């Protein structure tokens, strides 16, 4: 472990709510420890969902991992939070170029230059893209411009990116929560595994049908409508509650969290999801 990583890790341990996770994630990324960098960044984003530098870092980690689509999506988020962000425009241009979308690449790189990005690399990349387009017989003119002043595009009646719906409800970086619809598809939140991967879709698929099975069990036993399911694993405690329209709220926390606190956190997440589904958040 380098001195930088050790120092930044200590700093983050002392103050888990600080933004030092960004330089720490960057240091890990530079060392090639991509899985660890991803984990640190994802955990930090749960606390700071609207921090553009963190989304920018997540995008760069994604590029290093070869996940260009996620990189593009993260830079798109940066652009929503900080219109005209040079790094995001540059990055989106790079991704488009890698994907062979030359017109889009030119559009983003031009927008970067127009937004005042004086990096020589951008100018050179833009020239290369234009040359590639001409070489491919594609006219360089008539390129759509990127509106770098656009507002965030969020669901009607909401003020949050759904992925971070529970970010400020959960009190610890070890906690994660998501909301599933009746088919087990993710509506909001994330389910971050211990290796930093978002496994919401996989977990949701396995849990589809839980609501129905729980309802049938409690009705058969005449226990009334079920209110919660809690299960303990080797490393975590997972708590679930029914949600509107046969949906399912799922929350996970570390094994060391007292069960009473787990219940309180589940209640708070349920309250948040009910507000969100009602368009009041």
């Amino acid at each position, binding site marked *: 472990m380098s001195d930088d990583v050790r120092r930044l890790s200590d700093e983050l341990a002392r103050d888990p709510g600080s933004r030092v996770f960004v330089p720490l994630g960057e240091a890990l990324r530079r060392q090639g420890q991509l899985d660890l960098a991803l984990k640190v960044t994802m955990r930090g984003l749960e606390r700071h969902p609207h921090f553009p530098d963190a989304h920018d870092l997540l995008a760069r980690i994604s590029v290093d991992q070869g996940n260009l689509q996620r990189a593009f999506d993260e830079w798109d988020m940066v652009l929503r939070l900080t219109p005209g962000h040079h790094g995001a425009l540059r990055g989106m241009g790079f991704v488009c170029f890698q994907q062979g979308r030359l017109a889009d690449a030119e559009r983003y790189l031009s927008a970067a230059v127009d937004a005042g990005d004086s990096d020589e690399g951008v100018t050179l990349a833009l020239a290369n893209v234009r040359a590639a387009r001409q070489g491919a017989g594609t006219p360089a003119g008539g390129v759509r411009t990127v509106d770098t002043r656009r507002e965030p595009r969020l669901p009607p009646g909401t003020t949050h990116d759904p992925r971070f719906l529970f970010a400020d409800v959960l009190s610890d970086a070890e906690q994660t929560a998501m909301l599933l619809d009746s088919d087990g598809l993710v509506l909001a939140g994330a389910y971050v595994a211990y290796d930093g991967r978002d*496994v919401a879709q996989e*977990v949701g698929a396995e849990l589809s049908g839980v609501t129905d*099975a729980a309802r049938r*069990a409690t009705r058969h036993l005449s*226990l*009334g409508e079920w209110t*919660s399911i*809690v299960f303990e694993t080797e490393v*975590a405690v*997972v708590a679930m509650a029914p949600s509107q329209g046969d949906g399912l709220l799922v929350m996970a926390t570390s094994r060391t969290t007292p069960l009473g606190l787990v219940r309180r956190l589940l209640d708070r997440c349920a309250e948040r999801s009910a507000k969100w589904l009602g368009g009041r958040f």
Partner: protein
Amino acid sequence: MATPFSPMLDALTRQRGVTAALVVSERDGIVVESNLQIGQDGDRVAALAASLYRKARLAARAAGMGAVSFMQLEAPGGRLCAVGGGALVLVVVAEASVNVGLVRVELLKAIEGLSAAGGEG
């Protein structure tokens, strides 16, 4: 006739508020052995509890969380608790007023015996 499961089922049903205890096959939800109150239908409870436990186990595996030890379903009128051991699930149905801490301890104590008697799944 006493079976390897009889002592654990007896220990559980002696707890105040416990109304049923069953050993169930996780794969198909079939009752292996049960202590039920008169009039209770164990087959359906077993199938539903095994299904819930299996979903929890698969979800935990998808999230890389390791094995599921204890599961609890709560409703205003009572609780359904379960632990898994090998290919078997030990299920308890209890009233809402049960001391769930004690039931949990008894269930966790029974896991080893359950695995030994039922084989690894």
